[in-house]
């Protein structure tokens, strides 16, 4: 097979779209497909039904089991048509032995029958001739793209088949007057008390349904296969490149032939113009359709080969169509509209309507006459118990569901009302880590300014400021008027403090200085931690003195306190961390 000959548009599709393409392919080539199918399948069906004369049910099963054998015929015709060669019925019949012999048919009819992606795997066997290890590899490679949809295809097609079979049965029932022609029930599946004629009718319905749907199924699997190869091997790109090569080749070949083509185009356009000028009114009606392209509108010499957008035939057809349309309009305008009512009255007056007829039938009712016993009613009691059981379990499930939902609701209510011991306590206190600092209150020393002064005196100014800053953050978060998120920067904290505490306090209140203090603290901290400047003790001293004016730490229950983390290690870590 050559990609250039392919008769379908190659583009990467979703696998579901590929299935639809398969259906379109089966529609498009229905004649060769269904003739080949019928030529092989119908005789086989007849033979098998005759062979299983005693047990018609077995014939259905055998025919169903043999599907892969007939699939091969469909695929043979389909593959030929897809690559541009529609094979005749004789060729197909000729190819039959080749299709059935040495084509892994034995596997496909034994354990391979349970392959759920049958129609998708078939092209690899039949067209690529892959066997054994190769086949397994191919299945794996292509299956990555297409197997899922191919399995669904099989499942859905199975259901469509059942639908069609049941539809056929019910159609017959719908159109049989009086009593239904047969009772369709589940009993029929298990009781053999169905007449033979009925069984063979069922077999015929099966054959029809499978004949209608199987070519579509095989085509869809083949289309998935083609799509997988298109995606994986870039067939569409290959085709486009080849076309481009030949276009460029043609365009650069010789100028003389090209001139000839130009002449042909112009002549064609003139011809088209002439024909259309003969039917001016018709053209006026038809103006919305595409007018013929003049060759001047094409810009590059390369496209000369594709120049005539309308072939001569199309031009003639269009002109003819326009003429017909004009004539049709004339005829229509002279048609009287009043005849219908008269005709209807005439029909209603005729003797087929409104007649009564007595009909007589003689029947023997003398001695020995027996009334037909009424058909026994099937006892559905067991079904009721099944349904009852089902209803009971659904009810039980519903109660369980209600219980779960109400328990969940109770939990949520308890959590938001704030019952102790419910939910996550830490919510109230915001994040535990900020800028790499531990900001749990438990991690702070009891007297913050005191501890800070001690650190400063010991010659650790960094740790001292760090402690002040950290404790300030803890106090702010505890205060609850500011929300500090995990991702906030120091600058954002300062802004928030400014916004909240400048508005909420009247002038003169001693907390008025809080934002300024906090901003000064942050500034010192940034100098130390980020800029790594040496800060003198004089700069830190006022911060330590004023800290207690503005901030206070509320302790959690001392019994719950964890052991404080030494501040040194945290500061060191945060500095090393580069923040």
């Amino acid at each position, binding site marked *: 097979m050559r990609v250039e000959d392919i008769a379908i548009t190659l*583009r990467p599709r979703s696998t579901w779209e590929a299935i639809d393409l398969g259906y379109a392919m089966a529609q498009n080539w229905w004649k060769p497909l269904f003739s080949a199918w019928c030529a092989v399948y119908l005789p086989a069906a007849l033979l098998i039904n005759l062979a299983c004369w005693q047990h018609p049910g077995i014939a259905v099963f055998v025919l169903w089991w043999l599907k892969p054998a007939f699939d091969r015929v469909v695929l043979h015709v389909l593959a030929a048509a897809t690559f541009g060669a529609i094979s005749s019925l004789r060729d197909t019949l000729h190819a039959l032995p080749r299709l059935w012999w040495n084509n892994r048919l034995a596997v496909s009819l034994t354990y391979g029958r349970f392959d759920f992606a049958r129609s998708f795997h078939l092209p690899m066997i039949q067209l690529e001739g892959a066997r054994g290890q190769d086949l397994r590899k191919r299945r794996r490679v292509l299956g990555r793209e297409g197997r899922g949809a191919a399995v669904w295809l099989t499942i859905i097609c199975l259901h469509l088949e059942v639908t069609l079979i049941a539809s056929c049965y019910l159609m017959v*029932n719908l159109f049989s007057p009086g009593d239904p022609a047969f009772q369709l029930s589940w009993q029929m599946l298990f009781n053999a008390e169905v007449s033979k004629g009925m069984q063979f009718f069922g077999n015929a319905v099966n054959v029809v349904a499978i004949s209608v749907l199987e070519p579509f199924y095989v085509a869809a699997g083949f289309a998935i296969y083609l799509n997988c190869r298109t*995606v994986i091997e*870039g067939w569409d790109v290959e085709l486009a*490149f080849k076309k481009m090569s030949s276009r460029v080749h043609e365009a650069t070949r010789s100028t003389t032939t090209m001139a000839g083509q130009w002449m042909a185009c112009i002549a064609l356009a003139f011809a088209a113009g002439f024909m259309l000028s003969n039917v001016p009114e018709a053209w006026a009606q038809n103006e919305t359709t595409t007018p013929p392209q003049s060759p001047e509108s094409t810009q590059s010499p390369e496209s000369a080969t594709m120049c005539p957008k309308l072939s001569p035939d199309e031009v003639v057809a269009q002109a003819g169509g326009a003429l017909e349309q004009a004539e049709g309009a004339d005829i229509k305008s002279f048609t009287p509209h009043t005849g219908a009512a008269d005709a209807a009255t005439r029909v209603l007056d005729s003797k087929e309507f409104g007649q009564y007829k007595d009909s007589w039938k003689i029947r023997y009712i003398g001695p020995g006459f027996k009334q037909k016993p009424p058909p026994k009613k099937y006892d559905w009691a067991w079904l009721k118990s099944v349904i009852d059981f089902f209803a009971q379990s*659904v009810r039980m499930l519903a109660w369980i569901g209600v219980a779960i939902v109400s328990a969940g609701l109770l939990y949520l209510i308890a959590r938001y009302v704030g019952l102790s011991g419910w939910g996550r306590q830490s919510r109230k206190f915001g994040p535990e880590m900020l800028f790499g600092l531990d900001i749990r209150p438990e991690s702070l020393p009891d007297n913050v300014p005191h501890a800070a002064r001690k650190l400063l005196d010991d010659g650790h100014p960094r740790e001292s400021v760090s402690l002040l800053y950290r404790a300030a953050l803890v106090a702010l978060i505890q205060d609850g008027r500011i929300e500090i998120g995990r991702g906030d920067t120091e600058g954002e904290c300062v802004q928030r403090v400014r916004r909240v505490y400048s508005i909420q306090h009247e002038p003169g209140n001693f907390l008025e200085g809080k934002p300024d203090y906090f901003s000064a603290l942050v500034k010192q901290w940034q100098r130390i931690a980020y800029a790594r400047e040496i800060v003198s003790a004089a700069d830190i001293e006022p911060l330590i003195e004023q800290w207690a004016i503005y901030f206070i730490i509320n302790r959690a229950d001392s019994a719950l306190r964890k052991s404080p983390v030494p501040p040194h290690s945290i500061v060191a870590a945060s500095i090393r961390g580069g923040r």
Partner: protein
Amino acid sequence: MLDTLRTIPTPEGIELTLKVAGPVPRAAAWSIDLMFRLIIVLAVQAVLAALGKVGIGISMLLWFALEWIYPVLFEVLWQGATPGKRQCHLRVLHEDGTPVGWRASVARNLIRAVDFLPFCYGFGLITMLLNRDFKRLGDLAAGTIVVHTERAEKPLAIPSAEPLIPNVSLALWEQRALIDFAERRAKWSDARAAELAAHALPLTRGVSEGETAKRLVRMANYLVGRR
């Protein structure tokens, strides 16, 4: 060329393409919808069972609504798709590509009853198989069409390389093919990529085999406007 695309020219001279959807995806979508509806009905019925006959009445009304109103509401108000269709990336449109309206949606869903005959969409299935646009009777009557939706547009994924002006002037579809090649280059082995590139003979003539694919990727870089 056979395809499931339908093109619709707009007055602005733009061609819209619709990918019509066939029986298999539509059956899948319908089954998903059926499942949703069954779940709703069973869940509500289990609760309504406590109300006795009133409950049965309410649940029958609910089933009526789910059968007749559910598809219409979803199709008109939710971009032409019931939940099942959305799951299968399908959408209902007018034949001319415009979003489906109340009239058409009601029509196609009322005629569903005919499609359903004689058993579980027997007529619908046959009509779809006989019809190029895979329309069931309801679609034929209402003038609607079921299409595959476009998946979310992926950003251009061309490996960047130094742009190179193609040495042949290229038609639009050839440029598209070149960009496709570059976008999907990563999926192919080097050998396959070289093989493909060799087919673009005018662009790769005289280049050593290992370089052809790279050369095409460079040209694609030029075509998408990298300079």
